[in-house]
């Protein structure tokens, strides 16, 4: 579906006409990311991050397929095969560093994409399905990233696998058998490494599939925009191509600059030195931490240090960590305000920034050792995280008085231009 004024695909060359009758793939592309897709005229640079996440996925798939040509998924040789990639394979160091840092870049842009959605209310009707599919993609990314981190079979790989599969042992009665089933043994070993490799290769393609659904669901109502006002007529939109292909092109350029800067100048900045020590099942590193993109959730996991009701601390921690993500599935219904954009929601805008700070605090606690004051800090921050979604958001969406809103996207854009013009003449 699209707006009635969307441009129609009209192939001119005989070959393209022939192709359009047999397999209208160019038509599909034209209508999805070409001139046939009308997009609000006022998107800002925060709307780049979906495309950037797609670019990051492509980089991960390309570098990952190459790495798999040189890597050996066997507990005896995995660590050495990674060193072989780093030292012996032609440009192997570059491809591996690109893959390692590509994962971080992927999460950076996805987190910005998620917070963009939170600020501008992109999760609200009629785009709930886009948001739900996005949360599914986020979960798949986390699983993929975790399994990928196990593959080099260093100390952090091994102990990460031990701790994360340990989550499942918190489930009463069946937990330990599930853990043994997941690992194919009593501790992470060859069986676990092999299956993680297999799944790490599979899941990115599953992610690509869900991304297609994500974009499909988005294109039914059409893209959201910074005012949160729906498109009313043709003057509110511009064709995706060339306007946003060009704007996204600028974003991709900046993204690639930062990506290569990280890859070439400080490739291990976001990694852990312990992962350059081969896995040792008899010795845990003094301080194990997951990769940075898991820190906030890791802090929530560790926040429970006490038994509560009839459930023990360990199970609470695991429940809380999964609930922190599962909560996002209910977000479209927790926030009942009809106003989408926080630009017109003074109260929600304040609490949005408090949430950002709260997540950063959780991240800092997740990175820090399990000692005071980080334990109490992560307890408070975790409590606030849940309170934000379950208490604060439902309340402010009822009591908040939104700021006056323009009647249309075009009106908002023209008002801004008038302001700029009067500021320039004054």
């Amino acid at each position: 579906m699209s707006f009635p004024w969307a441009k129609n695909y009209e192939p001119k060359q005989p070959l393209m006409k022939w192709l359009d009758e047999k397999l209208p793939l160019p038509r599909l592309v034209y209508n999805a990311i070409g001139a046939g897709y009308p997009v609000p005229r006022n998107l800002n640079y925060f709307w780049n991050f979906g495309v950037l996440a797609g670019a990051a996925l492509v980089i991960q798939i390309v570098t990952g397929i190459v790495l798999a040509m040189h890597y050996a998924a066997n507990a005896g040789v995995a660590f050495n095969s990674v060193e072989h990639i780093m030292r012996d394979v032609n440009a192997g160091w570059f491809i591996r560093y690109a893959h390692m840092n590509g994962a971080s870049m992927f999460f950076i842009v996805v987190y910005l994409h998620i917070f963009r959605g939170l600020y501008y209310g992109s999760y609200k009707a009629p785009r709930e399905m886009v948001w739900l599919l996005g949360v599914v993609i986020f979960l798949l990314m986390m699983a993929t990233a975790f399994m990928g981190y196990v593959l080099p079979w260093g100390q952090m790989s091994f102990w990460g696998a031990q701790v994360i599969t340990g989550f499942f042992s918190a489930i009463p009665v069946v937990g330990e058998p599930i853990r043994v089933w997941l690992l194919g043994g009593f501790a992470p070993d060859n069986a676990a490494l092999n299956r993680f490799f297999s799944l790490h290769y599979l899941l990115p393609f599953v992610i690509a599939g869900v991304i297609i659904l994500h974009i499909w669901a988005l294109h039914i109502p059409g893209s959201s925009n910074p005012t949160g006002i729906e498109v009313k007529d043709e003057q509110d939109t511009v064709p995706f191509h060339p306007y946003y292909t060009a704007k996204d092109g600028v974003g991709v350029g900046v993204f690639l600059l930062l990506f290569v800067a990280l890859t070439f100048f400080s490739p291990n900045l976001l990694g852990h030195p312990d992962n350059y020590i081969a896995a040792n099942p008899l010795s845990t590193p003094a301080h194990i931490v997951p990769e940075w993109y898991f820190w906030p959730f890791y802090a929530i996991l560790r926040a429970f240090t006490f038994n509560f009701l009839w459930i023990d601390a360990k199970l609470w921690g695991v429940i809380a960590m999964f609930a922190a993500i599962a909560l996002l599935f209910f977000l479209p219904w927790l926030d009942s305000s009809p106003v989408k954009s926080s630009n017109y929601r003074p109260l929600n805008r304040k609490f949005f920034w408090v949430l950002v700070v709260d997540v950063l605090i959780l991240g800092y606690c997740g990175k820090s050792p399990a000692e005071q004051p980080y334990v109490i800090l992560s307890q408070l921050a975790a409590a606030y995280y849940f309170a934000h979604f379950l208490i604060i958001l439902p309340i402010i969406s009822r009591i908040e008085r939104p700021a006056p809103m323009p009647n249309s996207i075009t009106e908002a854009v023209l008002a801004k231009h008038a302001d700029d013009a009067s500021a320039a003449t004054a």
Partner: protein
Amino acid sequence: MTSETDISAGIEDGVRRRDFINIAAVSFAGVGAAAVVLPLVNQMNPSADVLAQSTTEIDISAIQSGQAIKTSWRKQPVFVRNLTPAEIAEAKKVPLSDLRDPQTIDERTKPGKENWLITLGVCTHLGCVPLGAAEGENRGDFGGYFCPCHGSHYDTAARIRKGPAPKNLVVPPYEFNSDTVVTIG
């Protein structure tokens, strides 16, 4: 060409022959699919060679009082600790009501060999190897073991005293073959 009247010919009780064939065919395919899922799920369980590593024999003659060693059983670390009389007394002194997972030291050791504390070196929280087996490592607030990952403290009978772990360190099945040799598993 089959017309609608031909298909509904022979209807008894409103059920067509084709309804039966549909149900039978889909059920058969369903059972077949379930039968294929079973081996696909079961292949994830530990293989025969992994299960074969299920007993380990260890010589404990060299462990002095107050010392501990780290060994391995089923690819998991095992702590063998020769407790000092003071450590045993300290463990006995603790009232069971103070414990998260109440067990006496006698329940965790063999009769007459209560100085030998043999446990898995796997924190019951999320499976890190606690510190305290080797000389000079942090033994936590209760003189037993300390898990650095999430801060669980175990006492001298390897019982959980503080931190997120729900259970005491697991005592694996083991037998004394002689005074100096133990078989775990």
